C-alpha cells in the first residue's frame, strides 16, 4: 500500500473542505472497501480524512419514515428493532452482506459507495475502463459469469455489488449530501448512481468534497411486508449472483402497491417499474408473479457466461414475492 497522510476531521465542514482541496483525498469511515482497494493498488490516495468523529449517527423514526445516520454500522442497522420490524428488506439485505466482522466495521454511507467486484477491475494486470479510462474492457469477451445483463455499455458491464443499495432503491430511499459550502441537498438513491455509458469511471453524482450524511426511507405498507432474497454460489459470505428486494401491500387478496428491485444483474441497483406496474391491481397469485417477473429481463443483454441470469432473476423475484404474501 502506498503511503498517505491521515487526519481526523473535527467537523463536517472541515472534512468536506479538506476533500474538496485535494482531488486525491478520500473519506474513511469503516475502511473495509477503501483499504482493500488501496492494498490492491486499484485506488491511490494522498490523504485519508477520518470522518468517524462527525455526528452522523442515529437510527430513528422521522416525520416521513426512517432516518439512518451515514456513520451507523451495517451490523447495528441490520439488527435494529425499528428496521427489523418496519423495513425487513433493509435488515435482511444488510445481514446477508459480507461477514459479521466486516458488518461491524463498514458504515452505511461507505456501503453505498463500494466498488464493483468485477475480476478485471480488481486485477491491475488487466485493462479496465472503470479503473483506467480508455484502456478497454476484457469482460465483454472474457469471463463474464458474474457480470451485468442490465444497464451495461460497450465500455463496461461491471455489476453493482451492494445488497443494501438494492433494498434502498426498492423503497425509494433518499441520500442527504453535505457540500464543502455547508449546504445540504437530498437525492433519490436511484438517481444518485450513474450508468456506465462511455465513462464507467464516474459512478455517481457526488460533487467535489460532498459527503453522504444520512439515508432516509419513506414509511409504507409495502416496506413493512418486504423481503430480500439473495442467490449466491455458497450459502453465506458471498456476493449475489442474483438478488431481489421486494415489498407488497396486499389487501383482500389484491395488490395495492408493489416494489421490486434486482441486484447482481445490473450495473446499478436495478428497480423494475414494469414489474411493479403489472402487479398493482391484480390478485397476489404465483401465476401473476411469474408473468410480472418476465418483464424484468425484457431488455436484458446477456453475455457468453451469464445467460443463466435471465431465468434465475425471474425465479428469484417470484420466490421473494411468495415470501411476503
Amino acid at each position, binding site marked *: *500500500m502506498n503511503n498517505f*497522510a491521515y487526519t*481526523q*476531521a473535527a467537523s463536517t465542514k*472541515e472534512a468536506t473542505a479538506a476533500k474538496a482541496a485535494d482531488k486525491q483525498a478520500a473519506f474513511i469511515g469503516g475502511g473495509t472497501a477503501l483499504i482493500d482497494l488501496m492494498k490492491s493498488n486499484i485506488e491511490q490516495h494522498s*490523504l485519508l480524512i477520518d470522518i468517524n468523529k462527525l455526528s452522523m449517527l442515529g437510527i430513528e423514526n422521522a416525520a416521513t419514515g426512517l432516518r439512518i445516520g451515514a456513520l451507523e454500522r451495517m451490523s447495528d442497522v441490520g439488527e435494529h428493532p425499528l428496521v427489523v420490524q418496519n423495513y425487513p428488506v433493509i435488515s435482511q439485505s444488510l445481514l446477508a452482506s459480507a*461477514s459479521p*466482522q466486516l458488518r*461491524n466495521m463498514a458504515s452505511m454511507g461507505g456501503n453505498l459507495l463500494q466498488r464493483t467486484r468485477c475480476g478485471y477491475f480488481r486485477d491491475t494486470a488487466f485493462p479496465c475502463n472503470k479503473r483506467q479510462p480508455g484502456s478497454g474492457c476484457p469482460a465483454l469477451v472474457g469471463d463474464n459469469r458474474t457480470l451485468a445483463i442490465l444497464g451495461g455499455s460497450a465500455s463496461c458491464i461491471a455489476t453493482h455489488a451492494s445488497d443494501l443499495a438494492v433494498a434502498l432503491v426498492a423503497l425509494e430511499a433518499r441520500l442527504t449530501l453535505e457540500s464543502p459550502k455547508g449546504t445540504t441537498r437530498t437525492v433519490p438513491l436511484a438517481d444518485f448512481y450513474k450508468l456506465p455509458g462511455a465513462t464507467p469511471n464516474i459512478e455517481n453524482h457526488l460533487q467535489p468534497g460532498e459527503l453522504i450524511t444520512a439515508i432516509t426511507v419513506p414509511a409504507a405498507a409495502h416496506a413493512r411486508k418486504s423481503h430480500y432474497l439473495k442467490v449466491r454460489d455458497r450459502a*453465506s459470505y458471498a456476493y449475489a449472483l442474483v438478488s431481489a428486494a421486494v415489498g407488497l401491500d396486499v389487501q383482500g387478496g389484491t395488490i395495492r402497491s408493489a416494489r421490486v428491485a434486482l441486484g447482481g444483474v445490473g450495473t446499478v441497483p436495478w428497480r423494475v417499474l414494469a414489474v411493479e406496474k403489472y402487479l398493482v391491481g391484480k390478485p397476489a397469485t404465483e401465476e401473476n408473479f411469474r408473468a410480472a417477473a418476465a418483464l424484468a429481463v425484457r431488455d436484458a443483454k446477456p453475455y457468453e457466461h451469464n445467460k443463466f441470469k435471465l431465468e434465475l432473476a425471474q425465479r428469484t423475484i417470484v420466490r421473494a414475492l411468495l415470501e411476503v404474501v
Partner: protein
Amino acid sequence: MHSDDQTPDAAGPLPQGPSRRSFLKQTGGLLGVALAPPIASQAEALADKMAPASPIISGQASMSLNINGQARNLRLEPRTTLLDALRENLDLTGTKKGCDHGQCGACTVLVDGRRVNACLTLAVMTQGKQIQTIEGLAQGDELHPMQEAFLRHDGFQCGYCTPGQIMSGVACVKEGHATTDDQAREWMSGNICRCGAYPNILAAVREVAGQQAKG
C-alpha cells in the same frame, strides 16, 4: 518484554514534533486553503468562524494503543494496519495474517468488544479504543472457556485460522448468535478454515454458548 515499546529506528533518533514532511503537507493542504485569502482582517474573521484545522499525520508518528489492557507506545505510519502493528511492531504474533484483504477472518480481534478484521483496520484509527487479541484471552494459566472448548473438540487441524476462529467465537456467543447450529454457522461464516475443521469448530462454539445460557 521491553520496557520501551518503541521500534528501534535504524536511521538514528527519530525527529521530535512535526517532521518537515508533515509540515509541508499541512501548509500545502488544509492550512493553504484556510489562509488563502490574503487580507489579514478577513483571515482573522475567518479564523474566528472556523474550528482549528485538525493535525495531519504524515510519515511516522507516535501513538498509543491499548492492547489487552496495556498501553503500548509506538511509532507508526498512517498506513500501518492494526494487524501489522500487532505482529511486526509488538511481537503479538497470535493474530494471523491470512488473505490480508478481509476475506478469511484469520486476523479477527476485538475492538471495544466488537469483532473486526485487523487487516483492514488502520492502527492510527484504534487509538483510545480497547483492543483484545488472542494473547489477552486467558487469565494467566487459566484458559478462556472458548480455548478449552476448542481443545476438547479438536477444533483445528493446522491451527492457522484458530486464533481468529476463537476470537470470532467469543464474540459470536456474546452477541447471542450461537443459539442454534444453523445460526452459529451463519454468524461464523467470516472465518474460513482450509483444513475443514468446521464440525469441530461448530461443536466448540455451541458448547460455550450452551454453558453461557445456563449461566
